[in-house]
């Protein structure tokens, strides 16, 4: 059964939408995950606070993405926007945890030295902690972006936009020649993202 390329344009457009959902969701997640990562890092935040934040992050991680998406679609309506929100919410839990764990490996002597210039808490984070962790942080972000694309591809099943809608449509309609086009597209995009990951990691060192 050869792939049916007549749906190529439709598939490309929805793939693009899925990519946008993944990008937007990852970007939103990073904006929230960085401060949460600082707050969850035990070496720069008092124990009661960092443990509390870590507990909240665990709570966020434990909610399945599909549940988040269904709730948000119900609350916000159909379309890519609730999809991106769901991705963002779900990613924050993991990203912030990884960030915090990376921050906790930072060299305490350097933190003390930066603090020793009279720097404030936020300045110590910016000039003592962050520069030490940047390569790992960036690696986590691009890795999560790739994961988010695959997650976003599934989200269409619950009406949250993107390629998932057509996966569901064609699979249920037994139109496997069209499903083949979808799969080929997804594989191509994931491979491209993988390459992007590699380039970014090499660039940020």
């Amino acid at each position, binding site marked *: 059964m050869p792939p049916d390329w007549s749906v190529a344009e439709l598939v490309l457009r929805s793939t693009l939408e899925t990519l946008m959902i993944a990008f937007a969701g990852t970007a939103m997640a990073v904006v929230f995950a960085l401060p949460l990562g600082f707050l969850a890092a035990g070496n720069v935040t008092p124990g009661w606070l960092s443990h509390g934040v870590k507990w909240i992050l665990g709570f966020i991680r434990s909610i399945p993405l599909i549940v988040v998406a269904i709730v948000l679609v119900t609350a916000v309506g159909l379309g890519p926007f609730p999809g991106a929100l769901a991705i963002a919410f779900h990613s924050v839990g993991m990203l912030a945890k990884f960030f915090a764990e990376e921050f906790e490996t930072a*060299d305490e002597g350097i933190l003390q030295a930066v603090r020793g*210039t009279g720097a404030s808490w*936020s300045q110590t984070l910016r000039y003592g902690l962050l520069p030490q962790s*940047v390569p790992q942080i960036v690696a986590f972000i691009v890795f999560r972006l790739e994961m988010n694309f695959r997650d976003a591809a599934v989200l269409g099943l619950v009406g949250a936009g993107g390629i998932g809608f057509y996966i569901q449509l064609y699979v249920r309609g037994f139109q496997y020649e069209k499903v083949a086009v979808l799969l080929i597209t997804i594989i191509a995009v994931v491979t491209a993202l993988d390459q992007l990951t590699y380039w970014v990691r090499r660039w940020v060192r």
Partner: protein
Amino acid sequence: MIEVRDVHVLFGRTLALDLQKLSIEAGERVFVLGHSGSGKTTLARLLKGRLRPTTGTVRVLGKDPASSQPKIRREIQRRVAMVDQEFFLVPRATVVANVLSGALGRVPPMRSLFGAYPHEIWEKAESILGEVELSGLEERRVETLSGGQRQRTAIARALMQEAEIIIADEPVSNLDPELAEDALQLLVDCVARRDVTLIVNLHQPELARRFASRFVGLADGRLVYDGDPAGFTEEHAELVYRGGRRKRNNGRDSHDDTAKPVAPEAGRPGMRLVRP
């Protein structure tokens, strides 16, 4: 300027420091001598507020460096600069970024968070880099520098702080002997051009003699000499050194584990003025 009274510092059951009285006036160049585990680093940490004494009082610039008020702690941090034995620079950051970070205590916080240091701070950093002979290396990452260059970057960061007191804890113990002397000379020269009190922890009395205005000798956490470098005799060196013999293996400052005898005169087998 600095007042230490009846201070005891206990680490578990080990008495790391036992100082009845030590005061340092503005403009002095004090070299603190002692074996590893003699309490030199503990004293430096006390003055920088990284450690609270178990008993007694520490006053730096009239204030308690380990005060419970963050505002006072931060003020003392800013007015007292420290050059650590291991430098503690950010290896991934450039030389100039590391030096600029010395000014963090006096730049507008919001602007500094976006890396936007005021123009005069940049000019200051440039001139200090010239002073420590690092011009041209501004954009190099610290991780690509040699030990001597890192040392000078660390000194530049401390100078950038415009502190009133600079504490250098074993600043040259990671360097070759020739480099060590040059680095100390550079530090002392830079300090001499400013109105700064200098406190240096050092192993080697003969090296210290060239730069010090005052010697403080510590052995097993106790003050065994305090005064003019000229009065620091072979016997004092012996005292400082012998203390080290007794306690060498449970020394508190683990960085000092390569301690060498401080007795200056030759004639004793296996003793050297500077580390090989």
